[in-house]
């Protein structure tokens, strides 16, 4: 493949992987097939004793441990169509935050479930990309995931058009999903069973070559959720007597996000800087900012190191409280730490070893969060994988 085609194909691939943004395949379909695999160990830190409510005998401080296998195949199936198949499996065990209780001194402490939770999840995604001309592309996608208590079915349709000089690309994408929640032990704990959640999303993206060492892309995204949006496994403490009620959230949620990405190549250092920002807000009054900075540094022609830092900050949902001193008129209750106000910082280091037919990689991430909720999570993640290319 010539340098010209490589440049165009790289821009295309780069932009497509952003999701809706930039699906330019200006030079048409590539002949190369790609196979990738990754194994990940995800480990959450035990809940600190100082934040743990010990009165429930079944409660455990040992949080989730998850092992994940991911597979990806990408290649042409005709002169104008490319198939992308991705699948993943997860097996998990550990304890999960249940509700927040007050100690005798009024300090919020996390009540956990038992450590006997065990589940597995399988995910399959198919995408067809049809290149009708050198500058126009249509995308059709299908996804399905299932676990013991949850299943999801999704469909997507997208359109991409690039300018004749290949400097700019616009993308439109629409997708929808229908999920079913079947909480385990629904009879024993009076949990919801057979509840439905629906989602419809629209995205508009724009990507450009700014100059010969700089790419930028931006997108705006809107998603409407409706149906059962609560967590069937969580409770909230309500009233002075310490009574608990099931987690209950509004049955609709609108969310908006704006994403901006830049990729800057530094010729003198043979490296590339990655900068990503996302603004997010939803109708539950959660607002967040996410910044991510990465540096892809080529140590030699075969070795590359990639340090990354990610900062995340969110406000709490309007109806969220650690615990409720009285009942609410709207009936909404949630003490879920994910709806609380918090900041999180994660550091990641990745090493890539290039070979003639692809790349092998290993990565380590440490994620820490900080806020007033006792159940906020800390985790680390170790991944090893490879990506192979062949004609």
């Amino acid at each position, binding site marked *: 493949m010539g*340098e010209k085609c*490589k*440049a*165009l*194909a*790289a*821009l295309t691939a*780069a932009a497509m*992987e*952003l*999701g*809706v943004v930039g699906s330019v395949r200006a030079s048409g379909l590539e002949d190369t097939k790609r196979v990738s695999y*990754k194994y990940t160990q995800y480990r959450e830190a035990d809940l600190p004793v100082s934040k743990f409510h010990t009165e429930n005998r079944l409660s455990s401080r040992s949080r989730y441990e998850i092992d*994940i296998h991911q597979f*990806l195949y990408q290649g042409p199936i005709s002169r104008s169509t490319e198939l992308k198949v991705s699948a993943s499996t997860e097996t998990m065990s550990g304890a*999960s935050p249940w509700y927040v209780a007050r100690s005798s001194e009024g300090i919020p402490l996390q009540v956990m479930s038992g450590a006997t939770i065990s589940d597995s*999840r399988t995910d399959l995604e198919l995408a067809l990309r049809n290149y009708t001309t050198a500058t126009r592309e249509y995308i059709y996608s299908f*996804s399905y*995931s299932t676990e013991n208590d*949850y*299943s*999801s079915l999704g469909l997507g349709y997208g359109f991409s058009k690039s300018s004749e*000089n290949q*400097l*700019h690309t616009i993308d439109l994408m629409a*997708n929808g*999903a229908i*999920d079913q929640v079947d909480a385990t032990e629904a009879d024993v704990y009076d949990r919801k069973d057979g509840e439905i959640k629906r989602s419809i*999303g629209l*995205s508009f993206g*724009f990507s*450009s*070559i700014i*100059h*010969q060492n700089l*790419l930028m*892309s*931006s997108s705006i*995204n809107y*998603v409407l959720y409706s149906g059962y949006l609560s*967590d069937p496994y969580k409770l909230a403490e309500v009233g002075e007597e310490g009574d608990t009620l099931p987690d209950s959230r509004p049955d609709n949620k609108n969310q908006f*996000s704006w*994403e*901006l*990405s830049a990729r800057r*190549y530094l010729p003198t250092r043979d490296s*590339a800087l990655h900068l990503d920002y996302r*603004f*997010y807000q939803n109708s539950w009054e959660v607002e*967040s900012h996410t910044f991510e900075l990465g540096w*892809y540094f080529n140590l030699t022609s075969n070795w*590359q190191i990639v340090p990354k830092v990610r900062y995340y900050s*969110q406000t709490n*949902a309007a109806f969220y409280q650690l615990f409720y001193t009285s009942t609410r008129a709207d009936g909404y209750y949630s003490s879920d730490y*994910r709806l609380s106000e918090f900041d*999180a910082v994660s550091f990641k280091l990745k090493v890539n070893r290039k070979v003639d037919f692809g*790349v092998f990689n290993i990565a380590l991430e440490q994620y820490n*969060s900080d806020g007033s909720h006792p159940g906020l999570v800390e985790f680390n993640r170790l*991944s090893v*994988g490879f990506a192979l290319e062949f004609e």
Partner: protein
Amino acid sequence: MQLKCMLLCVLVFTIGCESVKPWQRGNLARPEMSFAPDPLERALDEHIYFSKEASSSGSAISGGGCGCN
């Protein structure tokens, strides 16, 4: 504020572009200049952060399921 940032972004995209010829795009073709050099890593990033935070990216609608609480 967000609207101003978005408009500024559009200005940068449209006015700031040089006419980069195809033969000048060698650096842009490098794998590390991809928006997502490792698609599996990106997919898992989105899945984990979506599971542990209240936000999600625009493309995280499909696939569903949390896998963990």
